[in-house]
């Protein structure tokens, strides 16, 4: 167990959560809650893996993964925006739909080896003492994409005109409408973008960070953790990234806990009684709940809430 390995691996597995959480942040800022992240991720992971296998190109796989997540999200967009269906139920059905579709189309992919997105070392930056080895040496290309996405998303949401429109639509759709912003259009767009990012998150599992297709164990609940992360992050991409990376580190740490016979000079209980590992496996999920309790409390203190119109359909001419 070394700190360097934990940090490195946290950055890499955290990238998966980061993509999905930033996607969901964009969707929720537009006023649409999409609980289908797990389904979109799984479909993205399957599509990426299958396409990479069929074409021999991980890049085609990546595109297919992104497209699959995006296309699936459109079902949610149509049903919640035009048909004004309940967003919670629609999001759940999207997870069923995505999972089912991924399992049906992913038959027989288990155990195959698809071409993968490569790991790269950034020439100069990697030479920064210690930090360089952690952040910039032999990480997957998508990890670097994650580094770029964090400030880009923050800047886009807070500093640009379309970002302002996005927040207006999620906060006060009627007011946005009266300013000539196309509320339905914006909501479709960001639901789609969120879906694409969830697809990317899925693809970054299956053809990059922990490669392979293991049916529904491929995502193993990470989509749900990403949704929780959004609340914890209070719709801020910077906090979402931090949370994602921390989560990644935690997972690695718990894996490493099981290895050594001695832990901090004491007999390692997880080494001698392997069944205790089940309690270790619970911790990410319990910690998510604790993070949520803490997140909701601090959000209330600072009066940061969900986007005002989150979860409510907008109908022109109805209410103010």
């Amino acid at each position, binding site marked *: 167990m070394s700190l360097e390995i934990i940090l490195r691996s946290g950055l890499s597995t955290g990238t998966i959560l980061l993509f999905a959480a930033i996607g969901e942040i964009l969707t929720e800022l537009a006023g649409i809650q999409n609980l289908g992240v797990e389904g979109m991720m799984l479909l993205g992971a399957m599509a990426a893996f299958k396409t990479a296998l069929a074409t021999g190109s991980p890049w085609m796989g990546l595109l297919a993964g992104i497209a699959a997540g995006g296309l699936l999200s459109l079902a949610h967009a149509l049903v919640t925006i035009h*048909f004004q269906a309940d967003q*919670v139920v629609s999001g759940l059905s999207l997870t*069923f739909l995505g999972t089912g579709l991924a399992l049906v189309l*992913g038959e027989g992919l288990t155990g195959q080896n698809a071409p993968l997105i490569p790991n790269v070392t950034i020439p100069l930056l990697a030479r920064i003492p210690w930090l360089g080895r952690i952040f910039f040496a032999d990480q997957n290309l998508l990890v670097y994409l994650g580094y770029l996405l964090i400030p880009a998303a923050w800047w886009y949401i807070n500093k640009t005109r379309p970002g302002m429109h996005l927040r207006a639509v999620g906060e006060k759709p009627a007011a946005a409408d009266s300013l000539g912003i196309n509320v339905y259009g914006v909501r479709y767009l960001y639901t789609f973008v969120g879906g694409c990012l969830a697809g990317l998150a899925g693809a970054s599992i299956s053809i990059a960070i922990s490669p392979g297709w293991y049916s529904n164990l491929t995502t193993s609940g990470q989509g*749900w953790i990403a949704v929780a992360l959004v609340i914890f992050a209070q719709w801020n991409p910077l906090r979402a990234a931090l949370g994602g990376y921390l989560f990644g580190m935690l997972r690695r740490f718990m894996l490493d806990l099981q290895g050594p016979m001695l832990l901090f000079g004491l007999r390692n209980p997880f080494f001698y009684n392997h069944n205790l590992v*089940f309690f270790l496996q619970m911790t990410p999920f*319990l910690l998510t709940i604790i993070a*949520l309790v803490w997140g909701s409390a601090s959000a209330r203190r600072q009066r940061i809430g969900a986007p005002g119109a989150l979860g409510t359909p907008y109908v022109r001419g109805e209410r103010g």
Partner: protein
Amino acid sequence: MSAPYRLRIQKRTEEVPRWLPMATSIGAIILAFLISGLILTIIGGDPIRTFRYFFNAAFGSWGALSDVVVKATPLLLIGLGCGLAFRMRLWNIGAEGQFYIGAFFASLVPLVPLVDMQTTPKFIILLMMALLGMLGGGLYGLIPGWLKAKFNVSEIISTLMLNYVAVFWNNYWIYSEFSDAGFQMTPMFAKSAWLPRLADYAREVKAFSGITLHLGVVFGIIAAIIIWIIMTRSRWGYEINLIGDNPQAARYAGIDITRNIILVFMLSGALAGLAGMSEVSGVVHRLQERISTNYGFSGVIVAWLAKLNPFATILVSFLFGALIVAGREIQPSGLYFFIQGTILFLVISSDVLLRYKFELVRAASEE
């Protein structure tokens, strides 16, 4: 030149015709099968043969039909619990976890054992198991309910996370303390901890031999009746409905919302816990991994498809029981999830028909 007809969409002002919700649900189910058939054709399957096989696997014999009811039983109990919570707009997605914890609590009776399994009357043992199952599920439902009421923590996320926790919790006990000689399951329960099955009476009635139908389904039907009475005939049901429809008004009316959130969550969890008890005591007869084939999530769909109506829940859970029984026979295995997802999607989409009126009108006749 404009088209001779155009679609006119108007918000419904009058009462929705009574037959319409039923008709849209049935239409959605039929459409879901058509779409699934299309997908099957695209990936190179034969939809007609698959669906005929599907139908035979579920309804082809008395044995198959009894299997369907056995599978429908947990769905019914969970669907009732979820429906109750949804009525208050509480999203209990945690029935899967509550089911596992209920099964675990119920299993303590024969595994520890809490009472002498040889001498205690079967009735007492089963009653204890049912009560402990409900207690386990209820307590496990209390956690997200309390977090929601106290800290405003999203119950969707907390229940989902607790699902994973429950599975790991059960695994620990199955793999260690209660493991049957190192296998990943507990020893078989003593016979006195088994819910009576029709097959037990094969000596008296020949036709019952091999029929696995057990007493759990009776729990489900009784629960449906009780919930129906609570929701339509009691003050508590009125409060739940009011909170669901208009929390603001409920608060002004002096209804304690916090208390109701916690109570409804506990009852919802207790029903899922009872489903867990019925499954280990009526079907599996031991605690092991994967005692649930996604009952918790299917229960959500069942509740929604039944429009939260307890009696409709009985019908819908029967249909989904058939889907499960047939689904385990067919490949690819994900088709079952896919059909479920499609049905739910179409049902919620079809709700738009209940809110709006769609009419084809002659373009000329307008204005």
